[in-house]
């Protein structure tokens, strides 16, 4: 039992510091998309503090923290989608859904009773983010067909979000229906996809794909022999 608790604690630490690591990774970043890196960096920093201090303040103002946690998570993921989706119409649609979600969150906060976790907002958040992922893939197939999808960093971001939300979806929905013992028993399993998501995010901040195949193929015009006239000879 002690051994299990130690492993759970280890997972908890790995998760917390995997969030924190996203911020200093900004310094090592080779990725060209600065705005995306900044969002991921601040996402990591924010959630590190939330997780780190969640247990301390969570008991007294639990419902506020839950609402803020879900809201911030949704907003950061939406920001990522807004950066990686290029088409204006689709971005507008994402913004509309975000406004709807924020309004719903506020409404839910005032009408609901405090619970273990805010299952309903998390469920709605997951459905909305899955919809954004669908919009992203739809846009992707319309415009980007020159390279394999896995060569795009945005794909791995969406994969990370989908895995994280998808694997924790049932747990979040049923969390209020299970006993506290069961809750504590299964809670730590949701850390695995969360850590995986953070690893993928870290990989993007570091500048995945590390070698751009397009850049490799294009040679500079000056490299082609006998193409230009030698000006020194004239």
């Amino acid at each position: 039992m002690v051994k299990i608790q130690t492993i759970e604690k280890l997972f908890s630490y790995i998760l917390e510091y995997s969030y924190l690591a996203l911020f200093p990774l900004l310094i090592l970043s080779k990725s060209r998309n600065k705005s995306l890196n900044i969002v991921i960096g601040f996402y990591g920093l924010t959630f590190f503090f939330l997780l780190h201090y969640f247990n301390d303040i969570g008991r007294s103002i639990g419902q506020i923290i839950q609402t803020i946690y879900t809201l911030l998570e949704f907003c950061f993921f939406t920001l990522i989608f807004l950066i990686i989706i290029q088409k204006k119409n689709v971005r507008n649609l994402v913004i509309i859904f975000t406004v709807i979600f924020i309004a719903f969150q506020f409404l839910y906060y005032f009408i609901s009773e405090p619970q273990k976790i805010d299952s309903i907002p998390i469920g709605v958040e997951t459905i909305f983010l899955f919809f954004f992922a669908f919009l992203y893939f739809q846009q992707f197939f319309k415009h980007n067909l020159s390279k394999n999808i896995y060569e795009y960093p945005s794909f791995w971001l969406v994969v990370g979000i989908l895995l994280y939300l998808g694997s924790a979806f049932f747990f979040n929905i049923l969390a209020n229906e299970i006993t506290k013992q069961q809750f504590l028993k299964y809670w730590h399993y949701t850390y695995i996809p969360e850590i995986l998501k953070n690893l993928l995010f870290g990989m993007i901040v570091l500048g995945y794909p590390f070698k751009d195949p397009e850049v490799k193929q294009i040679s500079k015009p000056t490299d082609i022999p006998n193409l230009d006239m030698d000006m020194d000879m004239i």
Partner: protein
Amino acid sequence: MFFLQASTNKVSFVLFLGTVGMVVLTVALIIFIVLHQRRVMKFNRKIQKMEEEQQKILLNASIRLQEEERQRLAADLHDDAGPLLATARLYLNENLVNQDKATQLQSIFQARQIIDDTIQLVRNISHSLMPPTLKNFGLESAINDLFQKISGSGTINASCRFHDYKDRLKEEKELIVFRVVQELINNILKHSSSSFIHLTQNVHGDKFYLRIHHDGRGIVQADFEKLNKSNVGLGLKNITSRLRVVQGTINFEKDISQTYYKVTIELPKDEAFE
């Protein structure tokens, strides 16, 4: 509420099954997207390859046509101009000074006649390369001229009408359009057995249109594309490659009344020719 009534074990089972199901579903979705994209990419590459092949066929056709044109020119010069000049040279040989005046005059007259014929021949060759009417007066006059000549033969009724050609196309564009029209007319005369050819021109928005109607045997777009992909139909390939240079398109169709064929050339209108 089903879950509230269910035993904790049942909830655990549902939780386990649901989580595993969601993970499998998400992973399956990601794999499906990757595989689907690869399939689409493969299909696109295939299309690109086909387009490249088509481009190659067109290029080959254009080179072959150019070579044929050169051969025709060489043959015209060698077979017609060569013998004519050689004959003229015979009339003007060294013995001419020893001949009597009447014979000298006769020889000079003959030689002059031959040289005049040669000049005409060279002019014809030059005109076939670049019609002077087109260069000096533009596409409308050149096509009018061409149609008048065809009509003048008496075998076919050829007419044309330009509705809006105040602003001439660029010189090189005019030449390309003229060559395309020439090729089309040539095909109609050779293969269609039609009794009339009518050409109309108009401008709509930023597009320039030419339409040829004829009542003989013709082809539709599907036939055109088939011929373009095959090894025959050199002239049609040449039309395609010429139109590609000016970002133009061509469309072959049969009129709704099924009585005549229509060939429509569409190309972007450029700024007025100065």
